[in-house]
């Protein structure tokens, strides 16, 4: 009992030390990141975009997303009350885009999150334990990667049916093998490093080595992967939405907005242009951040 408490205390104490140290390291990364203008622009833009989408209910009444009126159909952009105009049903495009952004950004984040965690678990154990574990996991990844990701997602959505949750599962499944491979490769190089051998030397258990030495060291490349991965996921969600197998209309999502306006785009191009630009700006910002992070986390690569 007492021993347990002691352990806990010292753990928090040691955590304190390591977090304060980590802060110093994070500071350096931030310092280098801040110097990258494009990355900073990306960070500012994506922050504004996320905040704007999250707080959409504060400045746009929810009904505006769905209220239809034939009288108000195809109002051009920059009209009073409809800054981006309206669609064929007279729904306000601005409202749909801002509310739709919630789903697009959220889904991007969640799928990459799932893939991130699963990738660490699968790729980590494949790389670290090697042997049979490695073979089984990697063969399974090979199978999932034998068809393009979007085809796999499409098929899974088709099987499970439409809906946000199902779509998230479908997209994560096609992303996990790629993530697992990256982690495995990183773990394999780390496993051979002398510092892992050093930890073994004083009897560190495998699980401890993974959590204390391997995972913190693969985080860098993984975070970079995630940052540029979110962008890709937002594009994928939009594509599924466009194909009509993502989020079911009339729920707005950036891809579905373009999809439902597809037949009118040739005559009212703004209906496609505006939501498309939103996707592009969001993904571009995330890519800038990803690039900036790569340079900041791995400075030697640049020079």
């Amino acid at each position, binding site marked *: 009992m007492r021993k347990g408490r002691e352990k806990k205390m010292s753990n928090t104490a040691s955590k304190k030390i390591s977090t304060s140290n980590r802060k110093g390291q994070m500071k350096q990364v931030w310092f280098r990141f801040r110097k990258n203008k494009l990355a900073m622009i990306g960070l500012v833009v994506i922050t504004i975009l996320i905040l704007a989408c999250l707080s959409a209910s504060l400045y746009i009444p929810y009904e505006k997303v769905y209220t239809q009126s034939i009288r108000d159909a195809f109002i051009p952009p920059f009209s009073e009350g409809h800054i981006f105009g309206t669609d064929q049903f007279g729904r306000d495009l601005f409202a749909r885009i801002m509310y739709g952004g919630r789903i697009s950004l959220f889904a991007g984040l969640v799928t990459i999150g799932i893939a991130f965690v699963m990738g660490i678990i699968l790729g980590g154990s494949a790389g670290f334990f090697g042997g049979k574990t490695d073979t089984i996991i990697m063969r399974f990844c090979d*199978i999932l990667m034998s068809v393009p990701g979007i085809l796999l997602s*499409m098929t899974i959505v088709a*099987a499970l049916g439409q809906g946000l949750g199902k779509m998230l599962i479908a997209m994560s499944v096609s992303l996990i093998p790629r993530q697992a491979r990256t982690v495995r490769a990183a773990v394999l190089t780390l496993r051979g490093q002398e510092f892992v051998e050093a930890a073994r030397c004083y009897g560190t258990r495998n699980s401890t080595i993974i959590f204390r030495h391997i995972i913190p060291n693969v985080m860098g490349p993984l975070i970079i992967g995630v940052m540029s991965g979110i962008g890709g996921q937002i594009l994928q969600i939009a*594509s599924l939405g466009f194909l009509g197998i993502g989020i079911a209309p009339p729920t707005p999502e950036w*891809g579905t907005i373009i999809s439902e306006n*597809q037949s009118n785009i*040739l005559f009212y*191009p703004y209906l496609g242009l505006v939501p498309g630009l939103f*996707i592009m700006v969001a993904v571009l910002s995330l890519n800038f951040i990803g690039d900036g992070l790569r340079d900041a986390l791995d400075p030697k690569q640049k020079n």
Partner: protein
Amino acid sequence: MIKYTLRRILLMIPVIIGITFLVHFILMISPGDPAQMIVGPEATLEDIEMKRHELGLDQPQVVQYLKYMWNALHGDFGTSWFQSFNVMTEFSHRLPYTLRLGFLAIIWAVALGIPLGVISAVRHNTIVDYALTVLSLILVSAPAFWIGMMYQVFFSLNLRWLPASGASTWRHYILPALSLGGGVFATNCRTTRTWLLDTLRSDFVRTARAKGNKEVTVVFKHALRNSLLPIITQIGVNFSIIMGGSVITETVYAFPGIGSYLINAVKAKDVPIVMASILVVAVIVGITNLVVDLMYAVVDPRVQLGGK
């Protein structure tokens, strides 16, 4: 080399069995009775039961799967559930369109992407480099279907240069190929730049310079061939991306390939068509990867096929 190729082809078999089984499995366990969907809501229980028997749906899953694969091996991909035509015949009409489009897209993406990447690397941190970087970043950041639509609006509607949909003449291929290859072009351009810059900093390039080689020779004779190795690997990935992207592009341009065919099948859950598409795509991707690895061995003398 032949031994290696054979072994690789043998290794492809479990992967293809795996993916087809997986797809078959999730399509079959998913909710909704296909027999009922096919015969329609007004059908009697007997009708449904009959349809079920006719399609073999009353048999265990594994048996259904084995039967399907056995037939597929003999070139019989079954008949579409909802439209009564033979999947194989339909595929033989549509696959050439998709392959033609795919090859066109990959050719321009490689033929332009790599040289522009080289220019970007050699002139790094100049205006040319920045312009190319921004262009490729835009191309990877914008959704492919959106770019396709914007091309339609601009090149077909406004400028009236090219047809917006269909595939009857060669001019119909231009816009789809352009939008399908865009993302791949951008990644090729960016990776070529990164890898070449990396190689240009390596020791043997310094040696080449110390010999008195001109910069042009250093880049093209020494550095480029070495940076080609990762680029070749990239091409394998490219092909997979193109196969996936063709679903979207074909939908945008109402292009009569298997992509647009597949998407309708997926929506209707027309299992024979979905299965056939997955099978065909998996085989194509597998073969491309094999070809890429063989090419790799040709370019890089260090790679010994058959070894570990």
